[in-house]
């Protein structure tokens, strides 16, 4: 009698890393016309060392050879690159799909008409409030109107299933039903994501982060709306299932950084994910000898991230299997150890440690591309 070998759980194989990313985030430029208070890439000014058009297209060719299935293009504001369409069209015509994220300022009717004709392309419009009062406080005067205009253009040209992406904050969490209706009105899909204290978010985090009751509110709202995308970014909230005895949020509940995804920034630097633009999580640069493949497969950082992790300080908590200790980026930029609870641990296990972090001692982003004098939409006080 022979036995059938059990194939290992898929999530364990994914945590060990793949030979190439499934997809990756590619920030095309640090230039941006906005100055959102929570910008994960601290964007504003173009970096003079940006990849050239030729370098960008060569990178696409490298990704195509690796069979990276698609790229999530962002920035800054990617449509500010004069070669935006050239890069996008080169990508989709070489088997690398494109999903790109934009504030919509430059997505006029002509752009919408051009985009709807492209295969393997998806668009995501960023919005953080249903009203200018809520939205523009984070994203700047006029940004709400521009985003809505862009959505209208996409709807008018028949672009189906584009995405509207919301970063959940203390000030917009009560508008989730309205965001859903907005998406439905436009034939679009709603996506909500977790705010991390990354980039300029380091300074605005304490004013924008969800309260504990609001986290519960979001958790239940997500369970009630399975057709809303979350990018698995709320998996730390699965710790709630030990209280409710109910189901986990859909998804694998895993951090993909350096394992199945990564970030390529405008100057070719490769980071574990878009929320850890910091030297500590810099794996290499695509301009290095071996190109992107060599960084993905051989960098010290990614090799380390693909090693099995232990629960560390979370070992004694019954929720660890569900929440996996939360988000690496969020722990890093709040000064917490990576092998312990997430600052938003729903059980409050990080509260004491957080209170003990001396003001100003948590890591700061390694770079700041903010435009000098760019108005922060509201004066946000930083809790010490």
């Amino acid at each position: 009698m022979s036995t059938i070998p059990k194939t290992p759980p898929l999530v364990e194989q994914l945590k060990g890393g793949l030979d190439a990313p499934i997809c990756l985030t590619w920030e095309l430029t640090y230039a941006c016309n906005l100055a959102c208070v929570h910008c994960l890439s601290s964007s504003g000014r173009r970096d003079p060392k940006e990849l050239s058009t030729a370098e960008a297209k060569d990178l696409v060719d490298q990704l195509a050879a690796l069979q990276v299935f698609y790229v999530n293009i962002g920035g800054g504001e990617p449509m500010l690159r004069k070669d935006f369409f050239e890069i996008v069209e080169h990508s989709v015509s070489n088997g690398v799909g494109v999903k790109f994220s934009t504030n919509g300022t430059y997505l006029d009717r002509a752009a919408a008409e051009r985009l709807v004709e492209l295969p393997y392309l998806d668009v995501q419009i960023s919005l953080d409030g249903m009203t200018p009062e809520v939205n523009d406080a984070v994203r700047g005067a006029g940004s709400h109107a521009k985003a809505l205009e862009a959505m209208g253009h996409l709807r008018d040209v028949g672009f189906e299933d584009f995405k509207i992406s919301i970063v959940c904050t203390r000030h917009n969490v009560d508008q989730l039903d309205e965001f859903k209706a907005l998406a439905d009105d436009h034939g679009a899909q709603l996506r909500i994501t977790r705010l991390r204290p990354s980039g300029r978010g380091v300074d605005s985090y304490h004013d924008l982060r969800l309260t504990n009751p609001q986290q519960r509110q979001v958790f239940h709202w997500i369970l009630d709306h399975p057709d809303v995308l979350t990018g698995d970014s709320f998996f730390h909230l699965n710790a709630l299932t030990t209280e409710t005895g109910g189901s986990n949020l859909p998804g694998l509940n895993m951090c993909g950084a350096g394992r199945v995804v990564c970030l390529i920034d405008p100057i070719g630097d490769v980071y574990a994910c878009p929320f850890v633009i910091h030297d500590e999580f810099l794996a290499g640069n695509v301009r290095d000898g071996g190109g992107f493949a060599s960084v993905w497969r051989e960098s010290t950082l990614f090799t380390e991230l693909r090693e099995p992790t232990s629960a560390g300080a979370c070992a004694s908590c019954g929720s660890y299997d569900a929440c996996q200790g939360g988000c690496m980026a969020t722990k890093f930029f709040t000064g917490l150890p990576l092998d312990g609870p997430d600052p938003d641990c729903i059980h409050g296990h990080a509260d004491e440690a957080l209170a003990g972090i001396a003001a100003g001692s948590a890591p700061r982003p390694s770079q700041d591309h903010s435009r000098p004098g760019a108005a922060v939409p509201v004066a946000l006080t930083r809790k010490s």
Partner: protein
Amino acid sequence: MTVTEPTTEQTTEAVEGQDQTTDELVTDDVLVEEISIDGMCGVY
């Protein structure tokens, strides 16, 4: 263009293998597993 987003559920099928004694480990040889594009943080 039409982009159809995948469901968030994973599809698995239980497979009836050969006869097993109760002493043997239960084997579950599911060779295909679908993962939601929305299902890993960083994949979106």
